[in-house]
């Protein structure tokens, strides 16, 4: 990680944790503005932060991790692409992908912490193999969503990221299913309460899965892209995008 990106993370992480799921634009918007976060992607010459797509990934992911109730990613993207355009839609799909990745990691951390604490049958739930196996599956899905988000950011850095954003949003969407199901299952009834901090993550996850292209939308688009290119172009095309 670059030094500026580490600085950015060290600034955003505690702030988003503090604001979290209760943040409101009226009360907290000014603090985000003060730190220059909405101008993250604008060039320094224009008074922006001059961040790149990996920086954006860091901020979007942390916004998801802390279920930040202000749609900071949308504010950031609005400054680089006009609303209603194809580019705006794709960049917001990337933002939601990164938010999903962050929120899945947070829900996983919450779940692992909980099953190591909660005792039933005289031992922590985390000792039961059935619980371990479902959380392992969840961890793999969270890992896949995170890698997909990174891959999309890297592609944006390289230039055309149409294929990667489609693939990444679709993969992250699919991870939401296992992630939210397992997180709620291992928490039992407590996770179903308004008081406990799981629902700010899982309810956002369900929302982000359908925003800016649900599974059907992206699988159709990506599938059409691949079929139109033809079977013999798939692998050479995939490797040429990173070589």
């Amino acid at each position, binding site marked *: 990680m670059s030094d500026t990106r580490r600085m950015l993370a060290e600034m955003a992480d505690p702030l988003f944790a503090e604001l979290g799921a209760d943040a409101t634009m009226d009360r907290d918007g000014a603090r985000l503005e003060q730190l220059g976060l909405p101008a993250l992607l604008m060039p320094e010459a224009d008074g922006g932060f001059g961040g790149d797509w990996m920086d954006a990934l860091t901020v979007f992911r942390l916004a998801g991790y802390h279920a930040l109730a202000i749609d900071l990613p949308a504010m950031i993207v609005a400054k680089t692409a006009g609303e209603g355009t194809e580019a705006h839609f794709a960049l917001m799909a990337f933002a939601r992908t990164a938010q999903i990745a962050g929120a899945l990691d947070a829900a996983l951390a919450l779940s692992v912490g909980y099953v190591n604490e909660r005792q039933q049958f005289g031992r922590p739930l985390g*000792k039961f193999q059935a619980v371990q196996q479902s959380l392992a599956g969840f961890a793999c899905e969270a890992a896949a969503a995170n890698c997909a988000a990174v891959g999309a950011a890297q592609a944006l850095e390289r230039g055309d990221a149409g294929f990667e954003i489609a693939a990444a949003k679709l993969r992250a969407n699919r991870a939401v299913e296992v992630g939210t199901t397992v997180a709620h299952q291992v928490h039992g009834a407590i996770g179903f309460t308004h008081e406990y901090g799981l629902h700010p993550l899982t309810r956002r996850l369900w929302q982000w899965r359908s925003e800016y292209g649900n599974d059907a939308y992206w699988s159709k688009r990506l599938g059409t892209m691949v*079929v139109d290119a033809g079977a013999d172009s798939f692998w050479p095309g995939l490797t040429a995008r990173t*070589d």
Partner: protein
Amino acid sequence: MQTFVTEAVDWPGTAPDLREQVRALVAAHGERDPVRRANCWTKANPQFSKKLGEAGLLGMTWPKEYGGHERSQLERYVVIEELLAAGAPVGAHWIADRQSGPLLLRLGNEELKRRWVPEIARGEAFACIGLSEPGSGSDLASVRTTARRDGSDWVIDGQKVWTSGAHVSHFMIALVRSEAGSERQQGLSQFVIPMDTPGVTVKPITDLTGAHEFNEVFFDAVRLPAHALLGEEGAGWKQATAELSLERSGPERYLSSMVLFLELVRHAETAQDPALAELVGRLAAEAWTLRLMSASVAAKLARGEDPALEATMVKDLGNSYEQAIPQLVQAAVDWERIDAQVVQAVCFYLLQVSPSFSLRGGTREIVKGIIARGLGLR
């Protein structure tokens, strides 16, 4: 919590040339039949392996002194993902090039290295893995095959099972109990056993498709010289499990059904069925993600890190993916169409072999148990 930290993979500048080289070689000497291209890293073709050796594509990262080519780990990764994506018949040399050669170079004495490594790099010596026994599957620490000292020699007695490619291999690296009365992980050692040593018997096991890919191997007073001991006496458990992380992380853990995905795309080109396009999209997204994850693990290995947890996750996700493809294709394609013959042949073949994907190299349950431990459970 972030369980899988990906970094940009620095793909080597030589990658495009290497890909061209592999593609040309596979086009000239590979398999034409799509069914034979499925699950290709279990398909032995010694002539093809020899061609790869002649082209300098085996033992790529090994020292020149031992017949290697001193290329980078990622250059090797490029070559193996190309071979797998093309369904090349790489089964004969796969294990030797992936793990036996590196293990010999890391732990072997000079005699073992000189005897085997250059021949592996030429594509002329093949290896098999002797871990499983009739009473010892997931619970590997229960192995009972023994090695007993006799003068300066070792004498091996016992049996291995499910040994892939034992019938085409020149040597086995076996995990055996070298200390009488020892228990579990203690007292185990690894030995390099030439398959033509008197007392070694290989008996074929026919799999459910009727193919002969794995075997039983019996050891009846097999006498080996002192230098057949690989690494340290009694350190076999540690050595063999370190080998597993090499074994688990490669692109072969998600590409075994790639040929079926490609045939699905080819079929979708003419079938004009929106449901097929959607399935293609979903499977393409997964392939793209898995490639990123697998390459990221390779990049970490290349830097000398041991991303054991990440490697295990790639195996679990990859196996689930390559196992799901034939099921999803079966459910989606209209089998009444006469132009579905090729995709059908590959699909129905893979339906039968895919149960093995989440068994070989550690079962799904064992792999998930390792991930759970990595998460801090237990």
